[in-house]
């Protein structure tokens, strides 16, 4: 039981709670909701246990599905995001990235932004693809993905800034 583990549990519960209580009622233009709860997956320690992350993401998504009666769409999106996270790291921070030094919850640099952007887009695309589940709504899926991603991105960045660890 180290402090990282406890921090993650705390983050899991807190993000899930604010998602359900606040952000699910956002309903901008009646149908656009941000999903900043995926910050849990993004902020998970870079050198943390991969299987732990996969399992935690799965249950995070499953809880979201329970609260929004959506079957397994959030779970699928979260698990996929968790699985591809190392690849996104590699893409955003370059091949020479050193796992130990990459920190997401710090000052916003182009690398960090591109990482957040790709992650959010991937998660939302899978989420809306599975939620709507019909190809006749193709443009609707893209539109929702795009608009929701903007909101999620803004909220994610603001939340990171809000809870940024104090500089020593």
């Amino acid at each position, binding site marked *: 039981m180290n402090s990282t583990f406890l921090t993650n549990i705390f983050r899991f519960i807190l993000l899930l709670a604010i998602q359900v209580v606040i952000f699910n009622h956002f309903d901008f233009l009646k149908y656009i909701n941000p999903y900043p709860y995926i910050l849990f997956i993004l902020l998970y320690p870079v050198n943390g246990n991969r299987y732990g992350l996969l399992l935690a993401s799965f249950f995070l998504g499953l809880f979201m599905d*329970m609260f929004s009666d959506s*079957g*397994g769409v959030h779970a699928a999106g979260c*698990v996929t995001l968790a699985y591809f996270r190392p690849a996104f790291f590699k893409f955003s921070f370059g091949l020479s990235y050193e796992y130990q030094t990459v920190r997401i919850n710090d000052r916003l640099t182009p690398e960090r932004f591109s990482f957040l952007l790709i992650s959010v887009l991937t998660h939302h695309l899978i989420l809306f693809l599975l*939620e709507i589940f019909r190809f006749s709504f193709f443009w609707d899926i893209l539109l929702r993905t795009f608009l929701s991603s903007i909101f999620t991105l803004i909220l994610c960045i603001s939340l990171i800034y809000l809870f940024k660890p104090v500089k020593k």
Partner: protein
Amino acid sequence: MLFLLLLGISLLLTIQSHSYHRSKVINSANGITGGVYEKIHSFYEFMNLKSENEGLAAENALLKSLLYNQSDSINKFDQDPLNIENDYVVIQSKVIKNSYSIHENFLTINTGRAKGVKPFMGVVNSKGIVGIVDITSKNYATVVSVLNTKSKINAKIKKSNHFGTLTWNGKNTGFVQLIDIPRLASVKRGDTIVTGAQSVFPENISIGTIHKIYIDTESNLFTMDVKLFNDMTSLGHVYVIENKNREELEELEAQIKDE
């Protein structure tokens, strides 16, 4: 490997959720989510007390006026969900979680098996229909909203008694679609749509008015946009209606299909 396993489970749950009879495991009628929504709702309820009270007072006034104006006992109330003629049991309930932003919307209400709520009961409020009960737990139940692309409700045009099916195209929360109305039906903008033959809902519960009429290119039947009387984005007190004859009716209809 773990990834594929977990992804497989979530996809399975997703596919299950897209069939009308959904997964019995992942739904918001269970104790945890129901309890959380109950807590959240009690806060929102407090904020909306005034408008809720006004709505209930307006409904009381309407019921009173029906009561006082009832000239003879043969005339029955027309659009009154509380009209109990022993065939119907009405259970008072409240929406504790509303959803209207996705394509398959479900509501959660705070009554369940303990109060006699069972799947396939109709849910209405003072303005019109809301949905059909889907899954029940002891104290909570989920409701398939009329704003659900899988929802199919029997409806008719009040004036001409032409029957059709009420569906939703997933686009606008204020409008649902009435499909399969024969071309010979004389319809015009502004006509009232009510629930059809009594099965899940009693007959003649109001739904909305015709907003736009067009002809379906495939079936050559009328399709209409119906403007809902209900504001589905703001729901409070609802009534769950049990039709005691529903099983008998459905048995009979099933017999006809078999022959």
